[in-house]
């Protein structure tokens, strides 16, 4: 159980479980980040930019649960995050997320994994792409050939 460059290209689709974005969820999220912007409230709100990360979570959960990767949540650090937006996410959108591993680098016991999550509506409209870099510090006993 380890991770290497052969894992690049592995894809995790949460398409079976689209996320329906609701007006009140957007408001709750805006309140939680302390953002009073009126664009995130009212009858026809858009979501705050980083809400895209919440939408990517179902695909990330599948990646984290892949037994071939053997990742441990308590050993993962979120190193970098980027979003590219096609249009804002709005209340009423039904969003699917597909995460794909794009880079794997190793430095000793630390594995640096970059993955890209494409967010689209169930009708196939591309909304945003999230790119995340995480570091996973694998326990040495679990690592490699001697195990």
């Amino acid at each position, binding site marked *: 159980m380890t991770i290497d460059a052969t894992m690049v290209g592995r894809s995790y689709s949460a398409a079976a479980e689209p996320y329906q974005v609701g007006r009140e969820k957007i408001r*709750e*999220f805006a*309140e*939680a*980040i*302390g*953002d009073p*912007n009126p*664009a*995130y409230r009212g009858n026809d709100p*858009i979501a*705050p*930019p*980083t809400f895209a*990360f*919440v939408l990517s*979570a179902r695909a990330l959960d599948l990646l984290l649960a892949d037994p071939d990767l053997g990742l441990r*949540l*308590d*050993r993962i*650090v*979120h*190193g*970098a*995050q*980027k*979003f*590219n*937006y096609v*249009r*804002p996410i709005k209340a009423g959108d039904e969003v699917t997320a597909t995460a794909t591993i794009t880079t794997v680098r190793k430095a000793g016991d630390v594995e640096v994994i970059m993955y890209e999550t494409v967010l689209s509506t169930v009708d196939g409209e591309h909304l945003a792409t999230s*790119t995340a870099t995480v570091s996973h510090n694998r326990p040495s006993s679990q690592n490699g050939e001697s195990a």
Partner: protein
Amino acid sequence: MTAVEVGAELPSLTVTVRRDTLVRYAGASGDFNPIHYSDRMAVAIGLPGVIAHGMLTMAQAIRVVTDWLDDPADLLEYGVRFTKPVVVPDDDKGATVTFSAKVEKVADGKAEIDITAIADEQKVLGRAKAVVRVS
């Protein structure tokens, strides 16, 4: 759309992050990693104590840009590196994070904005950059 010149500084923003802020963010985001509410769990992985969700700091930082834009829908790209954790003590004062931003480039109807995030006199985000649509 917002008009802009290279070198322009955006109004800065200071936020206070307390333990209840983290509890609320955990609930709204679904990120229930215990290092964001349990000192015991945070210390167990080598942190000084409970830290803020990096995604919360990222969400707060972009307000410097979206508060300044006429319409937050004009945000096209936004990326950060999480360079230092924001440690949130279990008291009424919490942690204070100050965000500032400066326009670095304007071309082809887009502006590149660099964002700085400081907590406890240290940068907590690296290479924090937004690209926005401008007139």
